[in-house]
């Protein structure tokens, strides 16, 4: 599949290859810090398989989504907690 998918990341429209996960889309957009820890430290994906919970983002309004396990879809709105 070589189609592009249009999504928005923190309000900005972005075009990404079809089939990639949201975490990869975020990394391609230039950020590997997806969230902050409870004491404000920068955090990004660790385990890549859905157990560490460090890759969480808000996807289409749904909070606490594991972005390493979710494939980008047309029109998806992704927000990080930065």
């Amino acid at each position: 599949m070589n189609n592009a998918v249009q999504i928005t990341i923190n309000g900005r429209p972005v075009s990404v290859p079809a089939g990639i996960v949201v975490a990869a889309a975020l990394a391609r957009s230039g950020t590997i810090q997806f969230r902050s820890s409870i004491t404000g430290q920068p955090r990004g994906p660790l385990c890549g398989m859905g157990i560490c919970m460090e890759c969480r983002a808000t996807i289409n309004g749904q909070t606490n989504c594991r972005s390493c396990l979710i494939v980008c879809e047309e029109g998806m709105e992704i927000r990080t907690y930065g």
Partner: protein
Amino acid sequence: MSEAFDIVIAGAGIVGAACARECAAGGLKVLVLDQGPVGGGTTGAGMGHLVVMDDSEAQFSLTSYSRSLWHQLAPELPPDVEYEQCGTLWVAADDEEMSEVSRKQEHYAQRGVRVEVLDGAAVAKAEPNLRAGLRGGLRVPEDAVLYPPCAARFLLDRAREQGAVVRTGLSVTQLLPEGGVVLADDSRISAGISVNATGPWSPGLNPGLPVRKRKGHLVITDRYPAFVHHQIVELGYLKSAHAVSQDSVAFNIQPRKNGQLLIGSSRQFDAEGTEVNQGILDRMLKRALEYLPSLRALSAIRVWTGHRAATPDKLPLIGPSYSSNRIWLASGHEGLGITTSLGTGRLLADMLLNRKSAIPPDPYLPGRFAP
């Protein structure tokens, strides 16, 4: 090898800890024992709601007195106790519950506890995530919440500063009528008086004690700051807490200081196991969703259960047991153990040190159940 203490307290939960602090502050030599970590029993399973309740005058008196003691202590509580005076919002779904709001308002106001009545619009403004159409509510702004295991540890730290000794990982198997305790390894520790503060396990040390285990379920979510601002309780909660024999659920939610939400509540007798009962969990969560529909999509991290210590008249047992005047009780607090721990500690110490109590201790004396 035996040592001598004035008081040995079995149970390092919040009630035992509060008793230890008061007794140590009064100059008594105190030992606290627990088979598990501090606050690892009912204290660690519950909600940490500091609330004035008016099931009876005696309950109102003890909760109100205790709450004022918490208010005095609040400035000294360290951050991990997560004390937050967020207030309670009792919500009324219909006219019947709204008249209960009026009754409570009068009752509390007459006794000097600040309350405000809110109409439907005011409730919606105070808590935008509540479903539309609620009739109104009662806000009790000086109620608070905290994290109980750390509160228990803080109280024991204070007790230690006054010379108390705390030993965890030790199981008490017997309270001696002549004072003192026997441990699981058969060793004995002598004391003037032993105190049973083991909550739902109290009948194990005082056979025949009218304390029954009342199971509860809780769910904790991930962090959602500002999802709710008060501890919100449905007025139907009172019917649930009243019900003596049936399993019941009632909507109850607490915002923790760190933004996580604690969702409750349920009550079951004759449910000794600690496993989650799916039927009860279903009912409890469905009830919660009736009040907070958008709770549905929030991320839940953990579900657990605990047992409260319930007495027949819903009042705790504070004072000398009816079997021996060297075996005392500080148990049976049902869902109000966190709130009334401080009052319990003070009343117990008052009795031990022959001081006049700020509130009459009579309604809580164990002798009321003497056969």
